[in-house]
């Protein structure tokens, strides 16, 4: 679609109507995972390992089973055997087998008539452990003599002779890296570390599962992807996928953490053992922090070559990441994104996915990209300092444009990095004067957009309103955006479209809301579905008028004769067509499915001004600016919300959030008191600028906007802190304790 087509004659797309879920959420009517209940429902409690690494010698459940009101106790012995690959990983993480692999790993679960009884009984489950040496730090875990989490876990990518905890290895790049460095006037290399952080969604995982002896089951669950819940639960429990119907609840945040299973299959296993009574499991915050997926922690070596004028000649990244006791740290994504913003003739990437005694990592907003950006964008800034170059100029000079080969291989299609950097440069925040101990930092960030398996249906109701059925839970405003696009295509008011997130029985397979895809993919499929319904409505009008269907066109919510030759008929509105559709051929609907393509990646650039208290090391954010390419903002307020939310999560990661383990490998801060997500009073209003370089692969130009925003804050803050007080922080979080120690070291 040509660009100017996008910017004109849009009536609904680009407006900011009320969100359809707003009233339910503010009145408490919205039903989240824990709000579901059913007659005869039992409550579950999970017994978790207090040890980071321990062999399970014996589990005695007899005392728990003897408690009146306890209806079922399950251990790994209740699960099918013989699973392999990721199915085995998921099963092992759901319920420990021979070994407990991290503090918080589930070892048994109890279902009872009340949750207090279940908790009491859980404490009566006796587990005998043989404590094993453990390791939680990635650099320790990759050492040849580190405790081995699991023999034989490495896949074919790992060369012979690597330490046992390396389970995946990768190297890729292009050009001649040594020649590139030789060309440079300045070559610098440093090591950067980031700690694991949690998605921190407000709503802890919660579900209610029910499974009969006949293998037929149901689940109500807070999730980003109920087909994934179905597939994974079916695999872990040996069920037929189609026999399990999964209905998503309203969701109180996910940020990637709810794209997989943790305790959900336990509800089904307990239910089956309890004679098919529904079983509810609601995690506590401590369980969420100990046993659901945070992101990975990383240790990263980066080397960059730069000419005196700022031109990049070569770059090399060697990243080590641990994503817990299972493979899956997003080291690949971190490497793809690290240098994605820059033209690099010579580049080399090396990555290690390393096991450690921590919970199995899950996706977290742009998985891997924030770590990669922290390393690459920090070093780039350090080099600008050294050469006395303006960091924004250097970024503009090297910025990728449409047609450039990306650092990770493929050529870029339409992208908006230059436009984004220009908009940043022109923003008033960049001119704000800075006082003593204040500094400004900028950084860029990148994330992809995923198409993925998508199945959407829409139908016209008898009164001419429309309903859209999607399979992507709404975590960021997708219902509003999809309604706007459907309304735009149909030419009816936004309020006349209702978008429902429907259960697994209602559509073909849908991937979760991940990869910044819901508004892109479900939105695109909704528009395709709507176009089918429009074609059918044109046919109905044509039949009534007695003219050829091709002679009818659709605009402003009505069928019109396409031109004077088509005949002289008054427009036939959607209401007129809908009210008699039963007589004119039956239901009018549309359906679209496929692995959607045409994705549009999104670049962002952030600028932050900080003040650092030189006597306490505390960083205060004075101003924060997010500029990002949205392709087209369907509902700009939601896009701004994504930008702000991403920035805030990145700020938390940069400044205070971390997993703190004691010497026994036990998590010391599984509460929000000490797992320090920013509070509202920590932050100024986050300023936003939406850049719109339309994605030609989407009918309205949409790019994925949800994830990029978490990426630049990590390096932007490190860069700002250096500009404020002269210290370069290469180890996250940049907590007051660490910043003060660095200031004191600098002062001698």
């Amino acid at each position, binding site marked *: 679609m040509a660009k100017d087509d996008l910017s004109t004659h849009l009536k609904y797309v680009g407006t900011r109507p009320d969100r359809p879920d707003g009233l339910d959420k503010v009145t408490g009517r919205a039903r989240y995972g824990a709000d579901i209940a059913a007659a005869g429902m039992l409550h579950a409690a999970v017994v978790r390992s207090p040890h980071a690494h321990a062999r399970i010698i014996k589990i005695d459940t007899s005392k728990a089973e003897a408690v009146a009101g306890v209806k079922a106790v399950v251990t790994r012995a209740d699960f099918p055997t013989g699973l392999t690959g990721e199915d085995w990983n998921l099963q092992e993480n759901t319920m420990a087998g021979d070994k407990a692999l991290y503090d918080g790993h589930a070892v048994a679960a109890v279902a009872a008539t009340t949750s207090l009884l279940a908790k009491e009984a859980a404490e009566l489950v006796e587990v005998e452990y043989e404590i094993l040496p453990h390791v939680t730090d990635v650099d320790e875990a990759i050492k040849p003599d580190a405790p081995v989490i699991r023999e034989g876990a490495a896949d074919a990518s790992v060369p012979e002779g690597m330490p046992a905890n390396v389970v995946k290895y990768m190297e890729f790049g292009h050009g001649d890296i040594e020649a590139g460095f030789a060309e440079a006037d300045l070559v610098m290399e440093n090591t950067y570390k980031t700690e694991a952080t949690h998605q921190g969604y407000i709503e802890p995982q919660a579900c209610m599962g029910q499974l009969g002896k006949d293998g037929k089951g149901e689940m109500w669950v807070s999730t980003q992807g109920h087909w994934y819940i179905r597939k994974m639960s079916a695999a872990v429990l040996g069920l037929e996928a189609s026999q399990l119907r999964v209905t998503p609840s309203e969701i109180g945040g996910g940020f990637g953490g709810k794209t997989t299973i943790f305790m959900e299959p336990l509800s089904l296993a307990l239910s089956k053992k309890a004679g098919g009574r529904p079983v509810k499991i609601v995690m506590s915050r401590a369980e969420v922090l100990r046993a659901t997926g945070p992101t990975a922690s990383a240790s990263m070596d980066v080397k960059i070559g730069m000419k005196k004028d700022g031109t990049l000649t070569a770059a090399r990244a060697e990243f080590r990441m641990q994503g817990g006791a299972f493979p899956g740290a997003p080291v690949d994504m971190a490497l793809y994104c690290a240098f994605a913003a820059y033209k690099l003739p010579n580049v080399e990437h090396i990555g290690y996915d390393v096991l450690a005694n921590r919970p199995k990592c899950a996706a977290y907003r742009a998985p891997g990209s924030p770590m990669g950006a922290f390393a690459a964008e920090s070093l780039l800034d350090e080099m600008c300092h050294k050469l006395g170059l303006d960091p924004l100029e250097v970024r503009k000079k090297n910025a990728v444009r449409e047609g450039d080969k990306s650092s990770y291989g493929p050529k870029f299609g339409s992208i908006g990095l230059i436009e984004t950097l220009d908009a940043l440069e022109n923003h008033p925040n960049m001119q704000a004067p800075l006082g003593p101990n204040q500094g400004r930092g900028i950084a860029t960030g990148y994330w992809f957009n995923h198409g993925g398996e998508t199945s959407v249906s829409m139908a016209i109701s008898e009164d001419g309103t429309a309903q859209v059925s999607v399979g992507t839970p709404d975590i960021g405003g997708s219902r509003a955006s999809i309604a706007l696009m459907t309304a735009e295509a149909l030419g009816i008011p936004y309020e006349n479209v209702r978008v429902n997130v429907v259960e697994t029985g209602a559509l073909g397979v849908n991937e979760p809301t991940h990869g910044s895809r819901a508004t892109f993919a479900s939105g695109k499929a909704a528009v395709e579905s709507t176009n089918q319904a429009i074609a059918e409505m044109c046919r109905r009008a044509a039949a009534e008028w007695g003219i050829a269907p091709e002679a009818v066109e659709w605009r402003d919510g009505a069928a019109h004769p396409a031109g004077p030759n088509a005949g002289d008929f008054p427009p036939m509105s959607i209401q007129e067509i809908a009210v008699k559709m039963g007589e004119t051929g039956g239901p009018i609907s549309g359906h679209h499915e496929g692995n959607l393509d045409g994705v549009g990646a999104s670049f962002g650039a952030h600028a932050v001004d900080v003040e650092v*208290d030189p*006597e*306490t*090391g*505390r960083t205060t954010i004075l101003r924060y600016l997010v500029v990002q390419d949205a392709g087209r903002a369907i509902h700009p307020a939601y896009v701004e919300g994504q930008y702000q939310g991403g920035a805030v999560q990145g700020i938390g990661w940069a*400044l*205070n959030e971390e997993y*703190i383990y004691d010497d026994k490998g036990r998590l*010391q*801060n599984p509460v929000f*008191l*000490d797992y*320090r997500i*920013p*509070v509202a*009073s*920590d932050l100024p209003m986050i300023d936003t600028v939406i850049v719109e370089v339309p994605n030609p692969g989407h009918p309205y130009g949409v790019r994925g906007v949800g994830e990029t925003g978490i990426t630049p804050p990590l390096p932007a803050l490190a860069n700002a802190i250096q500009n404020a007080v002269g210290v370069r922080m290469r180890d996250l979080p940049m*907590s*007051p*304790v660490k910043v*003060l*120690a660095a200031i*004191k070291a600098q002062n001698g």
Partner: protein
Amino acid sequence: MKFHSPTSFAEAVVLAQNSEGVLRYLAGGTDVLVQMRAGIVTPDELIDLKKIPGVFDITRTAEGGWTIGVGVSGAQLGAHAELCADWPGVVDGMELVGSTQVQGRATLVGNLCNGSPAADSVPGMVAAGATVSITGPEGDRILAIEDIPAGPGRTNLTKGEMITAINLPPRGENGGDCYLRFIPRTEMDIAVVGCAVNLRLDGDTITEARVSLGAVAPTVLLVQDAADAIIGTTLDDEAVANLMAAASAACNPISDKRGTIEFRTDVAGVLAKRAAKFAYARAKGEVIKGTHL
């Protein structure tokens, strides 16, 4: 668990004396209920003191000091204009506790008796020279605030004893106080270091001072050396340097997930300096609302 709601302290003392197992008093419950929910402390007996007449009163004493009931919440303190004018540092300390919701319930007494070395209202009360009235099976007694905590989570109250009121001395002329705490964020956090300074001036010269530190030792500290460093001075640079050194020297902290020994020791000096400057300004008559770092 047994739940009692006596209507007099005498009745409460009998209940407490005869209690079995773990006993907790219920003031605002913002520690007790949270600890129950988290499974940290499950009391066998819970005595709610809020049905006792007078526990929500803030009264001016004949000498010009204040008596604060054991049910008085942070929000109530903050809304009391005269008390705020007299002891802004004490009120600031209490108002830092928790959020608006927590403020509606949390009390000075609960903060003190929960026994956290990081309790935010305690350094302010210590610096003010406040005392508590205690009743118990052996009769009534009065103790200085600093004599109540015995260590993390423990007090020097004996079985059956409870606090009936907090007593703040008369403010008098030319006095000022201030409490500051360091937390990594701006609210909803536990003090990594806290410091309160209370002083009185004669002209520009400090004639009386009390300095108290929180979160740097097993109990809140009253630091005489730090007070001595500024008494008789005009809070000049040398006095400030001595104050900082004395405050840091008094620290006996631990390294934990919230801060290192080094950090706590350094920041104690910084907070002492800044709190002293605010207290000095207040003693000079400046009205400073809600001090922060």
